[in-house]
């Protein structure tokens, strides 16, 4: 370490002190802002938290209110997007940790896109601010890559906590929500198949994850399907057996199985 230089000019010192003061002022400002934000955010959380629970958590009732305040429909994909962005672990619930950390991270993340001088000014601590974000997000998921991330997240989020797989009823409710039938025309048919044939009781992670790729790679008339039982064994599709069964069912029942 180089030896300390003796202070030669006073101007430099003055300058340094001024800088230091400025930084300190800013720092204080920052800390105050941070504290303010925490308070607002917490207050916002407390509006919805379950009064009966011991630990601080928002339960489904509170969630409902939360979404209502933002004019977010419960029957849409938005609650899931919000859960995703806040990195929640269980659909319908927000722990205080998740809430506080999530909102803070979101604020930093979202405003980092803008002018860095405004870094600590942008906070999400009210429904209005959140509403803004939501409309931004709904645009962003139009990108396939981003949407895939949301879709994969949803499995862990929406399945029964503690269970390895998702109840097939839950899956059947979520898929039409997330995979719109105009962009993914196989979905209604697939759900019909699950409903009538009842091939499985739960949907596992592999099946959930593979469905998106399946829909994207197979045309709706299933014209590139290779029946592994009828022709050459070696061209078996690399996808879960459940989908093979679906395609066989489709071929057997023709188009009258399509649900409008």
């Amino acid at each position: 370490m180089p030896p300390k230089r003796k202070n030669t000019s006073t101007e430099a010192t003055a300058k340094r002190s001024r800088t230091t003061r400025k930084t300190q002022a800013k720092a204080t400002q920052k800390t105050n802002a941070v504290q303010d934000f925490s308070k607002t955010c917490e207050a916002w959380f407390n509006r919805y938290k379950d009064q009966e629970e011991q630990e601080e958590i928002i339960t489904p009732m509170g969630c409902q209110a939360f979404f209502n305040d933002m004019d977010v429909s419960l029957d849409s994909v938005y609650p899931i997007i919000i859960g995703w962005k806040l990195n929640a672990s269980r659909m319908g619930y927000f722990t205080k940790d998740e809430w506080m950390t999530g909102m803070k991270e979101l604020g930093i993340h979202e405003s980092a896109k803008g002018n860095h001088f405004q870094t600590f000014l942008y906070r999400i601590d009210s429904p209005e601010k959140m509403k803004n974000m939501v409309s931004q997000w709904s645009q962003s998921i139009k990108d396939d890559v981003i949407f895939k991330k949301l879709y994969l997240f949803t499995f862990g989020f929406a399945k029964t906590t503690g269970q390895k797989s998702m109840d097939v009823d839950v899956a059947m409710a979520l898929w039409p929500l997330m995979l719109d039938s105009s962009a993914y025309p196989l979905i209604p048919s697939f759900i019909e198949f699950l409903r009538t044939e009842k091939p499985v009781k739960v949907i596992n992670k592999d099946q959930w994850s593979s469905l998106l790729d399946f829909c994207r790679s197979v045309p709706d008339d299933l014209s590139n399907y290779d029946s592994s039982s009828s022709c050459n064994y070696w061209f078996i599709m690399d996808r879960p057996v459940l989908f093979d069964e679906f395609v066989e069912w489709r071929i057997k029942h023709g188009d009258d199985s399509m649900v409008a």
Partner: protein
Amino acid sequence: VDRAQEFDDGFQLLSEAITEIFRKNAKSLSYEVLYRTTYNLTLRQFGERLYHGVKEVVAEYLESTAEEAIVPAFVNTSGESTGSGADAGANFLKTVKRVWDDYITAMDMIQKFLRYLDDKLPKYNLPHIFDMGLALFRDQVIRSEKYAIQSQLISAMLTQIQLERHGEVIDRTAVNSAVTMLSELIDTTTRESVYVVDFETKYLETSTAFYQVESQTLASSYDAPEFMRKVERRLDEEYERTTRCLSLTTEPKIRLIVETQLIANNLKTVMEMKHSGLDSMLSADKYGDLSRMYKLFSRVPAGLNEMRTAIKNHIMQLGAEINKTINADLKSTSGGGAQTAIRWVEQVLALQEKFDRILEFAASKDKSFQTAFNEAFEHFINENPKSAEFISLFIDENLKKGLKGKSEDEVDSVLDKTITLFRFLCDKDVFERYYKQHLAKRLLFNRSVSDDAERGMLGKLKRECGYQFTNKLEGMFNDMKLSSEMSGQFKEFSDQAVTNKFPMDLSVTVLTSTFWPMNLSSSPKCSLAPEALQACKAFEQFYFGRHSGRRLTWQPQMGTADIRANFKKSKHMLNVSTYAMLVLLLFNDVNGNESLTFEDMQAKTEIPENDLKRTLQSLACAKYKILTKETKGREILLNDQFFFNEDFTANLARIKIQTVANRVESEGERRQTQDKVDEERKHQIEAAIVRIMKDRKTMEHNLLIAEVTKQLGARFMPNPVMIKKRIEALIDREYLERSTEDR
């Protein structure tokens, strides 16, 4: 003036000489004079003129000869009887030959004295004299535009051949000389001989037509063997005629025609002829006919393929018949079934031997035929879901009784034959399961006729399938050996024991559970008689003293017992199953006239119902009736009453009561076995997948399935859908994951 005169004089001399030569008056000529004249004329630059002059003379001669000698000999083709027609044809040919011979001789002489000119001709771009002569003959005589010599000639030749084909004797030299003549003449446009251009083409055409008719005639008039003999004869005949009489170059062409018309067009017809075709030849082992068929069919491109496929189908049909008959037998016979299984094996082996002989004697060990036969066997053997069981039962029967008294070589050959059948099995793991079951019973009930034979069989299986297949079986043998060693020690132990003395000799075989095909969870818990229980406890004491950390589970359904039985008139030593022993001991507590019902015995011994029924059948309904049953017949009902048969007698002092003879499995049992096999296969597939993926790290889906199939193929043919399901199961358990790359 002089010059012209010189030429005319010289030329006249020469042309007169030529004429004389044609008139066969060559003797009167002086070679020297003619040569000198030619020499002079040529030297004096008259060569070309001389050439053309000579040519004219020769042409004139040919013209007149054609008219005078050849045309009169024309065959009159209007409705004359064949006899004179044949002769006329031959005569015509002879006439032509005579003309030709004379001509050639003459031309030879002529070109000799014109030698000096002849040498100079190339300078003038003119052909040699002799060649000119040939060309003239060709154009003026053979292909004369004035007279129909060509058609007469060709027609005469064709007719002669046709007559010979119909069995008449002809003058071959006449034909042959015509051929020779035509072969020497060259067709300028094609550079081929006139023989080829004028004769051969037509010959092949008419031959095709002839053989088309012949084909139909033969096929409709004769049965398959005779047809083939006739075809052979035709082939030989044509070959002989072509090589002796026509040109060698024609041979492959005419052969092709005969082969195509008679053989290639009749492949299916011959094979499918009723009562004499391929099927009946195969059934009756007609090696000669089959061999002839093989030779004939090998001449045409599709022939052997057709024959091979037809025989293959025949074998598959016979095999299917065997399967059907045997399966029907199984359904009809009530007991037994083991005999039926053995019959199946024997019939299949006989079929194999039959076709081995056919392969050797009829198809000269053609490898492609061997492959086709094997495919046929593989097909129908694997079509029968019970074949693995049957083969195991066959081996079982042989190792128990069948090989008694046979020499080592005979034993070896029987076992080798079963190995050849074993090789055809697709699902070898099913066979292994049955073999284990049967071997277990043989070892435990001490039914093997020879330990050497058992080991021999094991060695053969090991050579076929490797160590993995047989190591459990060897484990079973090992257990038997260890147990017999241990029994000596147990005897010492129990002799020395102060407490827990039990009044019977106990011999225990300790089975390592992973080797033996017993299902431990389903081992029946029956109530052992107190003496037996004591003995078992004593053994356990002995055993746990030597080995810690092990668990013993008694298997009463597999044991045997020797019991001394006292009847009214005699005493006997009975060798019975453990269950039977328990049943009989019950009668010790029963008075002479009292009986026990089935339900009683069931309650006291707790032996499972089906086993108890079988035990009672062996004691009361078989050859030696130790007990008597009230009701008649083999059927055991719940309230049947059983009495101890005091009046029992037999000649032998020692009697063996057999309970369980090996039967073919019922449908339910077979499904159970199949389930177990499937269960094991799931594990094998998963193990293979994990092994492969550990090695390769990433792999494309279909390649993985292919690799798994390859690795497991020696044991069984894995179902690709099953493999796929196992992959998914491994994904679920997070051993594998799908690649996240976009496809």
